């Protein structure tokens, strides 16, 4: 007897799709018809075709009508199509969904205070997190838009002299082209060098600080988009310029600049515009307002520079061939330098080491000084803070929801008695918390949109032009919000769904002890995090304040610095302004504190009588400079016009220099020999150390020489503080009179120095804001919890009052429990904060001590804030008329 063939079945996934699409009450008959048809078709057309038709048929069932019908009430139809046997209604079925949504919204509405606290905390936390995410992403994607970024390396130089090693971000003009010649693995190179230039077009005249000389390979190695012009030849010819759009607007408005000329520099060298490029993205370490062909520099402005192996000034990038190993290449560098520049290095006693830094890591990780540099520390710190804040918001949410669980115990009891499974209930509650999170998400999106401009100002760069340009982030935030809803909702959902219906419905339900313990633990954690942030804020603040108020060792108030450039008329001008009543004194120098200064290969006699060589910082000054800046002479004498030899064979040094030379007393350095930049002579004086660079660095050795005025010098003018504005205007008028074709370029020393701490101040401001946020969120949590417990204990308070307790004692009673937690949190936070701040301060050469009162004040502050928060609730509860609270239900 042959066995009956098993009947072929249609694809199960298609059936599942149909179940998903069609209303539950229609599924049986539809599947029935479909299967019947399928069996017929198997007989008529064969199984494969039947299956294909079946799938098609199911896809045809995805009709709007049927999908709509799922969400429609069935009042139209006289009888519902549900099957007679009892089944648990699916959680997502329209009926249950509607009822659950209704319940959720009713609950939110009924407890407005709780919902408000919840949504507030969450949305504020999300907003902070979102902004931080934008910032972190911005920092991490620096230079990421170059397609070849992973093959581009910056060629940096370590210069070793006898006294120190200097790490430059620059290298010589000669290195990159020769490397390309000698090594096949170097596919291409780009050198860029940023100079300041005066740029003129007709009557328009601007001092452009970011004119960049760049090799013709600039557009093929990097992905800067040319809108007009040929990327291969745009920077190939001498005196050709490519302008970003914003520069085009500045000089030409809406006219087409292609082929026009601009006049560059003091001599007004004409340069032809050969291309227009898109504005450079904000997160690029290479920035510029005009790009001039490098050949103009190496053949015209500075002829012969390409053969100088010891002259550093160009930032060089190498593009390696795909698959080339940078480490292997770097191993060949010493040999390369020896063959080309060995003689020079021995002659000047220099050791040159070349380093390859991957382009993507330069911005965040490179320790070398640069125009644009980010800090990994900041990125990490803010990421951590962002996560913390989000964690705080989640804890709040969990806490508040769980705390309210008793209110909903009856609902759970009833549902369970009717026959709800535990996991269904848990799902309902998680769904509710997801809903709440999505509400918070909407608020957070609005908040972010409002806050982004302010955040850009805070960060000091355009991190985001507006929320519209960060839609992927908004999408991410949406997903994150749902995830947070699931995570934060899990604990309360588990607690809620674990209730025993019998005990609950009897009405003898009490919150259990473990729940209280967990909640208290979470509140403690919240406050520990907040207090840590508060302490950190205070330390950061005092460090920044310390740097701003520290005596830098020179006077900088009312000091006007004028960039004179090669002004032949400078002596006349100087004499003219010196006569003004508002001008106290003037001095000229190559450099001023806080700014750039030249370096020179020098040798000075050390305490063992040898000539010690090194590359030293030099200040070229005139005779008035030392008195102008109130620099203290600690040994020997200052430069003086009474010693004519001073301008040809005298040198002054700072204390740090004397120490490097091995002189324990500054006095010992006087009269020692020096040899620097073609001058030989003796050291005549030692100046007290002053901070000529920012306070983040230790004071380095420095030498002073007297020279006459020459190119690019600075004129420091001390102005009478009572008439700054008039004097400034008068000086400008004089300038225009004597140097009509030069822009009057000046700054005030104290403003300039304040600018140095701007990045630290930004860090501080951001930190303060986030710390406040954290405290705010924690307090919201505390408020919610406190109000909950006071409501729970209304009867107890009533009884106590009737028996004669004072309001104060009741407030104390209610606050005590919570203040204990805050104190405990403080004890946990203090050592953590101390350690973290200790590490952060290590970034600074001059640190403020971490004093005990920092911790004291943070502790007092947090306890106070917590107490105020709690007393809102507790005082209200204590003042309540006991008659009201003791009325029987």
């Amino acid at each position, binding site marked *: 007897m042959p066995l009956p063939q098993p009947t072929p079945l249609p694809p199960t996934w298609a059936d599942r799709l149909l179940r998903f699409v069609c209303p539950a009450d229609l599924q049986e008959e539809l*599947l*029935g*018809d479909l*299967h019947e048809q399928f*069996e017929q078709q198997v007989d008529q057309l064969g199984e494969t075709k039947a299956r294909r038709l079946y799938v098609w048929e199911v896809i045809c069932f995805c009709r709007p*009508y049927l999908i709509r*019908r799922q969400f429609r009430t069935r009042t139209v139809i006289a009888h519902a199509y549900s099957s007679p046997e009892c089944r648990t209604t699916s959680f997502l079925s329209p009926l249950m969904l509607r009822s659950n949504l209704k319940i959720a919204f009713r609950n939110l509405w009924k407890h407005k205070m709780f919902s408000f606290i919840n949504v507030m905390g969450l949305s504020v936390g999300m907003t902070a997190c979102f902004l931080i995410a934008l910032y972190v992403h911005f920092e991490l994607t620096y230079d990421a838009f170059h397609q070849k970024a992973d093959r581009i390396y910056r060629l940096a130089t370590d210069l070793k002299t006898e006294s120190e090693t200097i790490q430059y971000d620059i290298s010589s003009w000669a290195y990159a082209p020769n490397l390309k010649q000698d090594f096949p693995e170097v596919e291409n190179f780009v050198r860029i060098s940023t100079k300041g230039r005066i740029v003129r077009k007709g009557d328009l005249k601007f001092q452009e600080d970011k004119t960049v000389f760049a090799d013709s390979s600039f557009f093929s190695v990097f992905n800067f988009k040319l809108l007009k012009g040929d990327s291969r030849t745009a920077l190939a010819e001498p005196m050709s310029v490519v302008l970003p759009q914003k520069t085009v607007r500045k000089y030409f408005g809406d006219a087409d600049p292609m082929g026009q000329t601009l006049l560059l520099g003091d001599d007004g060298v004409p340069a032809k515009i050969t291309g227009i490029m898109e504005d450079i993205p904000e997160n690029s370490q290479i920035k510029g307002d005009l790009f001039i062909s490098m050949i103009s520099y190496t053949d015209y402005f500075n002829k012969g520079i390409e053969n100088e192996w010891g002259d550093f000034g160009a930032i060089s990038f190498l593009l390696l061939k795909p698959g080339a190993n940078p480490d292997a290449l770097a191993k060949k560098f010493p040999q390369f330098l020896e063959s080309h520049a060995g003689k020079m290095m021995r002659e000047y006693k220099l050791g040159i080491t070349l380093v390859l830094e991957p382009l993507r890591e330069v911005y965040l990780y490179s320790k070398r000084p640069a125009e644009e540099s980010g800090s990994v520390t900041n990125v990490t710190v803010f990421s951590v803070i962002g996560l913390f804040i989000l964690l705080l918001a989640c804890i709040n949410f969990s806490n508040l929801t769980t705390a309210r669980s008793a209110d909903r115990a009856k609902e759970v009891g009833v549902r369970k008695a009717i026959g709800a499974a535990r996991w269904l209930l848990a799902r309902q509650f998680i769904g509710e918390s997801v809903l709440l999170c999505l509400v918070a998400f909407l608020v957070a999106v609005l908040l972010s949109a409002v806050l982004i401009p302010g955040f850009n100002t805070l960060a000091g760069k355009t991190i985001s032009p507006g929320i519209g340009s960060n839609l992927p982030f908004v999408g991410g935030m949406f997903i994150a919000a749902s995830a947070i809803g699931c995570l934060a909702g899990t604990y309360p959902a588990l607690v809620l769904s674990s209730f025993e219906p019998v005990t609950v419905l009897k009405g003898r339900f009490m919150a259990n002890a473990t729940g209280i313990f967990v909640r208290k633990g979470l509140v403690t954690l919240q406050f520990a995090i907040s207090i840590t942030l508060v302490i950190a804020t205070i330390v950061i603040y005092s460090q920044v304040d310390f740097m701003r108020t520290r005596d830098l060792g020179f006077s900088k108030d009312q000091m006007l610095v004028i960039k004179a450039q090669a002004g032949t008329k400078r002596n006349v001008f100087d004499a003219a302004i010196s006569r003004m009543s508002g001008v106290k004194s003037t001095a000229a120098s190559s450099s001023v504190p806080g700014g750039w200064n030249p370096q020179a290969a020098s040798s000075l006699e050390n305490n063992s009588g040898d000539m010690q060589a090194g590359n030293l910082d030099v200040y070229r000054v005139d005779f008035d400079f030392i008195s102008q800046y109130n620099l203290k002479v600690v040994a020997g004498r200052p430069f003086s016009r009474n010693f004519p030899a001073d301008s040809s064979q005298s040198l002054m040094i700072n204390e740090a220099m004397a120490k490097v030379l091995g002189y324990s007393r500054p006095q010992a350095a006087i009269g020692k020999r020096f040899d620097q930049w073609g001058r030989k002579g003796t050291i005549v004086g030692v100046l007290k150390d002053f901070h000529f660079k920012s306070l983040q660095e230790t004071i380095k050795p420095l030498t002073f020489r007297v020279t006459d005025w020459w190119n690019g010098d600075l004129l420091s003018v001390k102005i009478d503080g009572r008439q700054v504005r008039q004097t400034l205007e008068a000086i400008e008028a004089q300038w225009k009179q004597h140097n009509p074709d030069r822009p009057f370029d000046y700054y005030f020393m104290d403003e300039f120095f304040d600018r140095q701490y701007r990045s630290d101040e930004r860090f501080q401001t951001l930190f303060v804001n986030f710390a406040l946020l954290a405290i705010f969120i924690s307090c919201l949590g505390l408020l919610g919890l406190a109000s909950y417990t006071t409501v729970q204990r209304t009867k107890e308070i009533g009884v106590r009052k009737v028996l004669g307790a004072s309001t104060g004692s009741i407030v104390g009673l209610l606050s005590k429990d919570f203040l204990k937690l805050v104190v405990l949190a403080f004890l946990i936070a203090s050592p953590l904060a101390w350690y973290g701040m200790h590490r952060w301060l290590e970034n600074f050469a001059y640190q403020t001590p971490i004093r005990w009162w920092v911790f004291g004040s943070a502790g007092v502050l947090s306890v106070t804030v917590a107490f105020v928060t709690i007393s809102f609730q507790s005082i209200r509860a204590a003042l309540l008329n006991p008659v009201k609270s003791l009325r029987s239900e």
Partner: protein
Amino acid sequence: MSRTYLGEFEELVLLTVAILNGSAYGLNIAEELKQRTNRSINLSGVHVALYRLEEKGFVQSELGGATPARGGRRKRLFLITTYGKRTLDELRQVRNDLWEAIPNLSFS
């Protein structure tokens, strides 16, 4: 039109329900239509039309017995209601009037 609107396909389905007289359910309505109209008819269309007709009150339905042929699933059997019949009659009347209004009835 004050009456509930009846689409062309809905009208065909309604007529088929009337033809099958009590044994009408999704699949055999579809087959009947295929044979009589030579159209390609798919089940989902028929079902949606049926549910719409039911919402408009032209048909009523009940669950029939289970047959092993369909994996033990029950059919929903559709019956034309009086209102449905009346509507069909009215439609037919309107059409007949229109036909008679055409001058010289010979299209051959």
